[in-house]
């Protein structure tokens, strides 16, 4: 019997991962994802565990290759959106992404910013990135995506304050809230990167 649950986690990757692992601990295995929902089938409690990978910095082709690699490693994968966006034929610039990932399309890499990865619980930690440099690069990708939006909102606010563009007080307020929301994870991931870099001075 399929259990459908409606949840939206925005960009809170760790929160989503924690929730999926709680569902798995309660005996539910993920079978399908869509923009606002997750579908589960019953399984043994704790049989599976989940990890979520941010792949929005990769092009559609690279993300697909990575997904195929993970499936060769005997993991099961699902794509998931960060934003709520029902669209076909859309093109978006992601200046913080790598290579051709800077252009995201729908269909394509829009609404596939995350990969949910499943493995059977085997008692070993479920970590996709274990090398310090790799951890720095991975967290930097996530940090840069938040930093890009923070800088963009700051730029638009600046333009409105110096009267280059006209924004209402409500518009400025909303933009300020959005900017603040994106600054928090920017600082969070910057701290993670800093800690890894400090570690890297003496260890690999």
């Amino acid at each position, binding site marked *: 019997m399929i259990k459908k649950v409606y949840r939206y986690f925005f960009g809170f990757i760790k929160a989503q991962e924690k929730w999926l692992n709680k569902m798995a601990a309660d005996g539910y295995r993920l079978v399908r994802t869509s923009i606002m929902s997750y579908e589960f089938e019953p399984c043994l409690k704790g049989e599976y565990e989940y990890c979520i990978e941010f792949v929005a910095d990769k092009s559609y082709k690279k993300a697909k290759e990575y997904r195929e*690699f993970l499936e*060769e490693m005997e993991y099961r994968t699902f794509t998931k959106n960060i934003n709520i966006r029902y669209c076909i034929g859309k093109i978006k610039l992601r200046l913080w992404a790598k290579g051709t990932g800077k252009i995201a399309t729908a269909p394509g890499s829009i609404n596939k910013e995350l990969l949910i990865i499943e493995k059977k619980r085997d008692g070993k930690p479920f970590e*996709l*990135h274990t090398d310090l440099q*790799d951890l720095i690069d991975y967290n930097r990708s996530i940090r840069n995506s938040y930093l890009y939006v923070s800088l963009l909102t700051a730029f638009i606010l600046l333009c409105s304050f110096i009267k280059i563009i006209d924004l209402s007080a409500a518009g400025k307020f909303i933009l300020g809230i959005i900017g603040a929301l994106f600054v928090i994870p920017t600082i969070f991931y910057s701290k993670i990167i800093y800690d890894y870099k400090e570690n890297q001075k003496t260890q690999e």
Partner: protein
Amino acid sequence: MRDNIKGGALTETTFCVLLAVYKPNHGYGIMQFIENETSGRLSLGAGTLYGAINTLLKKGWIIPYGDEKNSRKKEYIISNEGMKTAEKELERLQQIYKIAENIIRGAKK
């Protein structure tokens, strides 16, 4: 490590992946090889391994092996350039080992 850039030191991940493909091997096999040979000390995450394989492919130190279209898992094998790099790394490690053994064992006497 950055201060070894002139010495050409490889990261442990890089060296272990090179060793794992002296015979044709796929991603899962590489991960298992490294874990078994290090008795579980070094357990590579799939994301780290994916990055390492792509880096080594770009450098030409490993090459795809076999018919990619027909096989379920992509396999890789070390190239001649990769073997030269691995041999240089072995010499470097042997030199460091001799220095460390002299000093550490010497200090204990």
